[in-house]
């Protein structure tokens, strides 16, 4: 087992390196660089010598160097804890993303918990009450969640939140708490503002999860050991929780690896719409302006999360499910 974990961790290193190189080069594929996007602004300042200034900026950001050298410099910088300068405002990238990553984590973790709790309850209910009214209602709600565009739902909920509940539109806290130290008021404000994004981002994930849980559980409920258990007089609740449900839990764990990156990328659009101070809007903007250092750092962070997520879910699955632990051996 230890050997297996060590091997997985060693494989992670080249994987992440390759991802980071790909990301770095793809960001630089479109014509122009991040300074091109500032020429407009220099022009609007009435600087007629905008091109000369742009060249000076290019030297400052090291864009005069060949791309591979820029990449090497960026990677070497990471080992000394520096992700380079963001091209937009010449601020070190690490300074820009610190708080955003923290808030993103809060948001994503809440969303995952929301997805799990809601889909667990509804999924189990739908499976045990197959083809009854409850099942249809639950499935209907699930499909609606899957089919409604996130951003639309976001806008509707925002408007309702403001007009009927007085929650300020967008953001993750009331304006007066921004950049203030931690306090109960701030926490309460964050929780209040989390509600809309969590529901919005969570709905589509929930819908998928409900379907999977329901399908898996239905499979298990048909099996002979369930019939045997029932024949032996086990109480319906114990019969459900003790065996089939445990089998059906596998997708939950297996999804950790998928859900982490999915939730992060899926929340970009919602975060832009809701103006959340998370990594999404900043990443989008960085990509639009070809701010390579900033964008590559974000994507690297997403890649690392994905790889770690996959590893954790694999390990957890192995720990939870003996069939996986013993693999092919068990089949014989």
């Amino acid at each position, binding site marked *: 087992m230890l050997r297996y974990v060590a091997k997985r961790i060693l494989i992670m290193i080249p994987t992440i390196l390759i991802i980071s190189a790909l990301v770095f080069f793809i960001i630089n594929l*479109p*014509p*122009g660089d991040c300074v*091109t*996007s500032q*020429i*407009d602004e220099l*022009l*609007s*300042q*009435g*600087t*007629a*010598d905008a091109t*000369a*200034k742009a*060249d*000076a900026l290019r030297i*400052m950001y090291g864009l005069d160097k060949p791309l591979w050298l820029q990449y090497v410099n960026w990677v070497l910088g990471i080992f000394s804890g*520096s992700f380079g*300068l963001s091209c*937009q*405002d*010449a*601020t*070190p990238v690490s*300074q*820009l993303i610190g708080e955003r990553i923290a808030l993103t984590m809060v948001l994503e973790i809440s969303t995952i918990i929301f997805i799990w709790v809601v889909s667990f309850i509804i999924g189990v209910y739908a499976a045990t009450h197959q083809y009854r009214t409850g099942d249809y209602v639950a499935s209907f709600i699930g499909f609606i969640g899957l089919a409604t565009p996130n951003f639309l739902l976001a*806008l509707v909920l*925002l*408007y309702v939140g*403001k*007009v009927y509940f007085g929650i*300020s*539109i*967008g*953001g993750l806290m009331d*304006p007066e708490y*921004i*950049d203030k130290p931690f306090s109960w008021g701030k926490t309460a404000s964050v929780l209040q503002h989390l509600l809309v994004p969590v529901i919005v981002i969570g709905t589509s994930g929930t819908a998928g999860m409900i379907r999977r849980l329901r399908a898996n559980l239905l499979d298990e409920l048909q099996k002979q050991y369930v019939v045997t258990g029932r024949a032996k007089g086990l109480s319906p609740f114990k019969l459900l929780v003790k065996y089939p449900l445990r089998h059906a839990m596998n997708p939950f764990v297996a999804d950790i690896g998928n859900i982490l990156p999915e939730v992060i990328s899926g929340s970009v659009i919602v975060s*832009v*719409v*809701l*103006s959340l*101070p998370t990594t999404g*809007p900043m990443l989008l*903007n960085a990509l*639009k*302006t*070809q701010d390579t250092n900033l964008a590559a750092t974000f994507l690297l962070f997403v890649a690392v999360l994905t790889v770690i997520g996959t590893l954790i879910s694999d390990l957890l699955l192995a720990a939870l499910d003996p069939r996986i632990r013993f693999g092919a051996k068990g089949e014989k």
Partner: protein
Amino acid sequence: MNWREVATGLALALWSGAALAGAPSLLESPSLIAEVKDGRLPPIGDRLPAEPALVTSFAGSDGPGQPGGEINMLMATPRDVRMMVVYGYARLVAYDENLTMQPDILESVEVQSGRIFTLRLRKGHRWSDGEPFTAEDFRYFWEDVANNSELSPAGPPLDMMVEGKPPKFEVIDEVTVRYSWSEPNPNFLPAQARAAPLMIYRPAHYLKQFHKRYGKPDALAQQIQAHRVRNWAQLHNRLDDMYRNDNVDLPSLQPWVLATRPPAQRFVFVRNPYYHRIDANGVQLPYIDRIVMNIVSGNLIALKTGSAETDLQARYVRFDNYTYLRQGAKQFGFEVRLWETATGAQLALYPNFNYNDPEWRKLLREPRFRRALSLAIDRDEINEILYIGMASPSNNTVRPRSPLYREEYRTSNIQFDPERANRLLDELGLRQRNDQGVRLMPSGKPLVILVETAGESTEETDVLQLVADGWRRIGIKLVPRPQTREILRQRIYGGDAMMTIWAGVENGLARPDSNPAEFACLSQSQLWCPKWGQYRETGGKSGEPVDLDSVKRLNELALEWEKSIDPERKATIWREMLELHARYQYTIGIVSGVLQPVVVSQRLRNVPEKGVYNWEPGSFFGIYRPDTFWLAGR
């Protein structure tokens, strides 16, 4: 008796009755009283210049008001902190609301034959950190910044060069400096009054520590390390930008100064205790103590504005939000005012005279072709559908409020007349059509015009949709092509974009003494003739020389205007240029005069009911001087 002595004497006596003839007795701002008592801040008399600027007229109708309070604004990116320099609008010389230039930071300015400028500062004027603002700050900029080859590799700013030559700079005394050129420099003063001004001074006392010539090498090296830049020049350039306004430590002369260290999502600006303007009651401006700028995503701003999360908002709010805003106005208690805009056209089509395909280029340069395109646009329909009839069909030219305006500049070739357009195209020999009814060029290529847009708003694509309907009737197919702004610019400059849709000329309110360069091809940024502009900008090193007589004439006129000091001649030059534009239809304007919603909290006073919302000249709210806005009630 000296004003300054009196002021000092009165400093702590708040409502002192000892009024001087002409000069009001000074009042301490309530929010600063505590700091003055503690001795953290000198009393008001010591903070103001000996001759403060006395404000007697107000853009709004509410007159002098009460100091205090805080207002909120919404912005879309942290880089918008520079908007406080635009709105604050403290300039050496500034436009008033009638667009007449007046000394502002300067006490006076004297101009001899358009080429010798003597600037006199206010004695005792101080930076926001309390250090004196003197001629040394001008000398520092000129000698140690503009003429330092490491800080300004391209040399002094172009607005300070006349025929490639810099001015002679002299410090006359501690409050007087003089710039003299050998030829007139008509751009020098207007550049000071711009929304993004040419700042010819720097807080020398602060910046010297970052300058190789003055700074201590050890400390400088440490700073370079701490800011992760490569050398002192980069460090200096990053810290000294008074327009970007993103350095908390950089002293300022603006009414409000940045108090939040970026990066942040919420920026607070606090009053500059050394600001140079007072009202007739002796109250130091600005009236409002704090301005809070919340950064939210741009597409939420209209939504948030409609629920009163801002006290003064026009940026990122568009005319198509008007009905939504009006609805919120009733519920949340704010006012929605409609201000005029001053661009020559809300949107205009720019055929690229330097397009790379020779056959197309020839056609795009043909005036009859452009006229036909213009005649085939149903501008009334666009106005009715997209601007609920509140704009007016127009060429891309000056607006009726400009003294240079003539009806024919706006209306020539803008009536919807597909028959005439068809005749014009037939005359050009474009009679062949393909099976879809699209006309063919002599080589057999169909007339499909790709119009590239910056793709930032649906407004452009909506307009193009309606333009396409009209053009279809004359056998021309329009295909819109959204790009990102940066790539679009490159494609235009490189001659890869056939036609672009973009906002019209910036200064639709031009006066004879406004620079007509926007109507000529002197710079690469002219979307209809980028390579000709580039040729002139680079002195012939790149780009192409102008090979069209009427455009040559435009350039000659614009250059002659720069040298001319006779207002009559300047007006004649303007007229001839505008006539050339009307006659040759270089660009195709669509509508102009689209209104800008301005959302104003009911508590906020002195924001004019009617105004012009424009970047240059106008500085958005700048010319209405937000330092005179005040909050009622509380």
